């Protein structure tokens, strides 16, 4: 798994629960030194071990943690870059949803060895969508649900989200857009410069 992914899990722990909590996770998952480099690649077995250790340290189920991580990725000031890059995908929430199919390609355009799990959006009648998340990493659908919850707010949209787990490990996020212009949403300044 790419270091960027592992590093974001590390940052989630550090930013929300403090450095000591992360060090406990790292020790439990045998991450030594207890630090992920964002631009290096790690063995695929490391990531699930870290997530399991996080479940142990926080005493919370995997799905709940993954959703929290998803929300963290697009709302915490330290990860503003992620939110911005996602906002480039669409002018409004629906446009944004449709851009998610391109997400793995977009990510690779920026960092060529970053492979994101593939996601597929299907549109249904009356503002209903399903996002099919097919990932070797269990809980990825939960993570996307956390992302979508915050991004809906970001676009000022009221949406209901629900997760459905299919037998073969595929996770489907059911999205029901209730009101497209529910609130003002957050400003997206195209020309903002990264600090």
């Amino acid at each position, binding site marked *: 798994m790419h270091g*960027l992914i592992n590093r974001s899990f590390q940052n989630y722990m550090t930013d929300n629960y403090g450095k000591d909590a992360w060090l406990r996770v790292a020790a439990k998952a045998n991450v030594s030194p207890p630090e992920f*480099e*964002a*631009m*290096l690649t790690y063995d695929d077995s490391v990531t699930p071990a870290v997530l399991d250790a996080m479940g142990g340290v926080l005493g919370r189920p995997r799905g709940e943690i993954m959703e929290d991580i998803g929300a963290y990725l697009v709302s915490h000031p330290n990860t503003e*870059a992620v939110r*911005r*890059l996602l906002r*480039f995908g*669409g*002018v409004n929430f629906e446009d944004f949803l449709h851009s998610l199919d391109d997400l793995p390609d*977009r990510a690779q*355009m*920026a*960092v060529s060895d970053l492979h994101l799990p593939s996601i597929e959006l299907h549109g249904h009648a009356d503002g209903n969508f399903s996002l099919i998340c097919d990932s070797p990493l269990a809980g990825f659908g939960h993570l996307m649900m956390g992302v979508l919850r915050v991004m809906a707010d970001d676009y000022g949209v009221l949406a209901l989200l629900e997760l459905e787990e299919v037998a073969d490990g595929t996770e489907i996020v059911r999205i029901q857009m209730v009101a497209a212009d529910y609130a003002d949403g957050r400003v*997206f*300044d*195209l*020309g*903002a*410069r*990264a600090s």
Partner: protein
Amino acid sequence: MSAATSPEVLDVLCPMHLVLDSEGIITHAGPTAQKLRPEMDLVGLPFMEAFTVMRPRGITTLAQLWAARHLKLHLEMSGTPPARLKGVLAPDGQGDAIVNLSFGISILDGVRDYALTNADFAATDLAIEMLYLVEAKSAAMEASRKLNLRLQGAKNAAEEQAYTDTLTGLKNRRALDHLLEQLLAADAAFAVMHIDLDYFKAVNDTLGHAAGDHVLQVVATAMIEETRGTDTVARVGGDEFTVILPQVNDIDVLERVGRRIIERIEVPIPFNDALCEISASIGTVWIQSSKSATRETVMEDADIALYASKNEGRARQTMYTPELRESANATTPPKGRSDRSS
């Protein structure tokens, strides 16, 4: 005007366009073009007043502008903030002309200066993808840069802590200092041989540094072979070596080891078609009780003995005695190595 070029269609396809009449007066401005100058009503202004053509050079009249149709124009818009734009003029065949504008490479400044949004660009415009890429690549680049800095720092730290001379694989001065301190602290009896190669500079000067490096490596191997497993051989300078011999009970041992080292080093070393012939001078201190000695005095004593070997005609070993120090003080004191001819 045909439907294909109606302002409504053009506003969608190229929101940064202007329509000029045959007099060169702007009759319509696309929404994004107008957004660049909210204070200034572009419609009704002569194009040549609203814009200066920077390139192709020398275009100042309408006729010249018309003649430059289909060419890439580099334009500067009047008013502030300064806007350098690219543009192309195409006559519509009925006396009017359309000028389409773009930010070109200044797109980053453009979106910031005019607070443009996705909606200000045509849906097919690659500007948003370009902004996305710039931002994503900058973030990735920054992460890589930080990684490089950390790795560089780690490399420097590792080098600083290293105990090995990279050319010869011998110990380095750091390792030597460390070992000397240990022996002195333990009040041990030991000997220090300070070895300086003779005629090495000539090898370097005549055969080049590759030959010099080869000689140093051969010499290093020879020294390891001619000393005991418990001895430590370090390269402490360009062609300077130090051997530390712990547990020396007899001065004869030192004499023998020194003689063997010199004999081995005097064996000509083949390099390509040449033979490198060098020798070595040695200054040795035998410390039987290190109570009053410090690392500095030990090395200074070895240096004085080495200096005596050099003075005596090189290719020999001299044992340090306090008398040597006195006679050295009486004549020329040993200065830095640079003063010594090798």
